[in-house]
């Protein structure tokens, strides 16, 4: 066999699909963002979409909603996930199988299924109001709707992140803790002095994943609140879907997609600058 050709043959089927459905589309999205796609056939127009996005109040609204979810939900979830991972890793915990199942099970539940459930639970006549003894119209109140989205996301993704953090915890050498124990460090001190610094690369990974995920948030706001009331929970993902696939404006939707991509890039760079380096 021709040795030099072998690796390329192994790669060929995957790379062909990759080129067709990822590499080329990334480029074509950029090209589309410089075209007026409201006429047939589309014509080049360098400023029509990028000029529009800068002055588009609905876009900035969607961006504000997305960033709001990002800055509230992601830190909340990662703090909770870290605490959970430490608790699940504790030798003092009994019935570990039960607790792991409880927190990890949402990982296998589809977005449509749990969105339907949370929409029901937060119905005005639903289980949450029944349990709290309140009459809040969650879904149709701007703040309430946002809260429902955040609660839903936290329920779904905390266990997922806890799984990753737990794997990170288990790779921290045990003798670090034994040495600290001998030196008389309290569990609290051990957590801040050993656990958190050791987890930094893992937490950074979770943070990057969560931010990219939140920037693309679509299914939950689409199905639970339909972006409403008004535009209160219209995220960038929902806005892109509306522009691209309801108004059928591929050029403008591509521009929104690239704006999201640029945001993801900026966030990733900021994080690497702030927390990265040695990882």
């Amino acid at each position, binding site marked *: *066999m*021709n040795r030099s*050709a072998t690796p*390329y*043959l*192994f*790669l060929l089927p*995957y*790379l062909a*699909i*990759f080129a*067709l*459905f*990822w*590499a*080329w*589309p*990334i480029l*074509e*999205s950029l090209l*589309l963002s410089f075209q007026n796609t409201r006429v047939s056939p589309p014509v080049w127009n360098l400023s029509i979409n990028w000029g529009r996005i800068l002055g588009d109040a609905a876009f900035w609204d969607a961006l504000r909603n997305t960033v709001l979810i990002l800055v509230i939900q992601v830190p909340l979830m990662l703090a909770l996930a870290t605490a959970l991972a430490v*608790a699940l890793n504790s030798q*003092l915990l009994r019935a570990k199988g039960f*607790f*792991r199942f*409880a927190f990890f*099970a*949402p*990982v*296998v*539940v*589809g977005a*449509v*299924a*749990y969105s339907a*459930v949370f929409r029901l*639970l937060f119905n005005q*006549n*639903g289980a949450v109001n*029944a349990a709290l003894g309140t009459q809040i119209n969650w879904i149709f109140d701007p703040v309430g709707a946002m809260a429902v989205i955040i609660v839903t996301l936290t329920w779904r993704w905390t*266990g997922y992140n806890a*799984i*990753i953090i737990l794997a*990170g915890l288990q*790779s921290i050498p045990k003798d670090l803790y034994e040495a600290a124990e001998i030196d008389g460090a309290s569990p609290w001190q051990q957590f801040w002095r050993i656990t958190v610094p050791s987890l930094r690369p*893992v937490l950074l990974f979770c943070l990057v994943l969560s931010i*990219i995920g939140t*920037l*693309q948030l*679509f*299914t939950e706001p689409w199905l639970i609140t*339909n972006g409403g009331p008004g535009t209160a929970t219209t995220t960038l993902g929902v806005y*892109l879907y509306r522009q*691209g696939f309801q108004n059928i404006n*591929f050029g403008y939707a*591509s521009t*929104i*997609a690239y704006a999201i*991509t640029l945001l*993801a890039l900026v966030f990733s760079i900021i994080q690497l600058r702030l927390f990265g380096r040695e990882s």
Partner: protein
Amino acid sequence: MKRRLWWRSFWLHLFLTPLALLWLAPLWLMFVFSTHPEIAIFSTPTPILPGNQFAANLQSLQADTNFLRSLFNSVMVAGIYTVLSIFLTSLAGYAFARFEFWGKGLLFSLVIATLTIPYFAVVIPQFILVAREAKTLLAILIGMAVFGGIAALLAWLRFSPTLGRALWVGYAAAALGYLFLGVPALREAMTFDFRLTNTWWAVILPSLANSLGVFFMRQNFLSVPMSLLEAARIDGAGEFRIFFRIALPLVLPAMAALAIILFLASWNDYLWPLLVLSDREMQTAPVALGSLIGLTRVSWGGIMVGAVMTTLPFLVLFLFLQRYFIAGITAGGVKD
């Protein structure tokens, strides 16, 4: 000392137990709601024990949308996708793990970079390709099959290095020529009607460009001892035989983990199938279920039945195969 540990354990369980029950509540209520009539779901206090209306709710779900057919579509789409994707990503992951070749670093960075690029950056061109330019896509796929076959043939025939190099250059030129001249010509020649929307393939094909799988399989092939592969090579085994007979069997547990994660991701996927499947008979379960949410006259009990039917198999599987799920989830997180 013992006493202090006992108290610590006590507080841990005191906080964690209610939280765990709270976390389980949505799943439990999903199950409970699927067995009650509509009126009970919206009553106070909320029912917390199962009722006996599951069959009735299933019936109304089946009437609202052909849900059993949707489940069948979901099984087929996720099944075909998983098998094909495992095959493609294993081949690619093996190449990145076990060979040195020109362009390796660049290609691998390209594939891995897509892990941090939002999916939205590609969804519109993917949609254009599948929904609007299906004939172009068909022409390209035909070309891929033909040129893939030629490449395999060229590699199989043992030419002298000089002749071999000349043949490969000719091959590359022909492939490029086909892409720029053959594809448009072939598309023009297709006078028949050809659409990919509302087919399983519309969902399967674009998701095959899965870079996490390549990364995951590469990591696992790296742990296969090189000496084992060398020994087979000295015995005169071909590279593909080595891959299938020696390398693949050693990474079967990793493949199982990847298969579970890929199947689950495909099973639960919503946005892309929503875009390309509008026909009721072709929709996957999440699309069918999602189409009911938000309608004014709809049976919520029925929707909960659908949610249970798409979720329960995986909850059961998760109980028994938790470590495979977790291996798949931590794939990207913990580097070595």
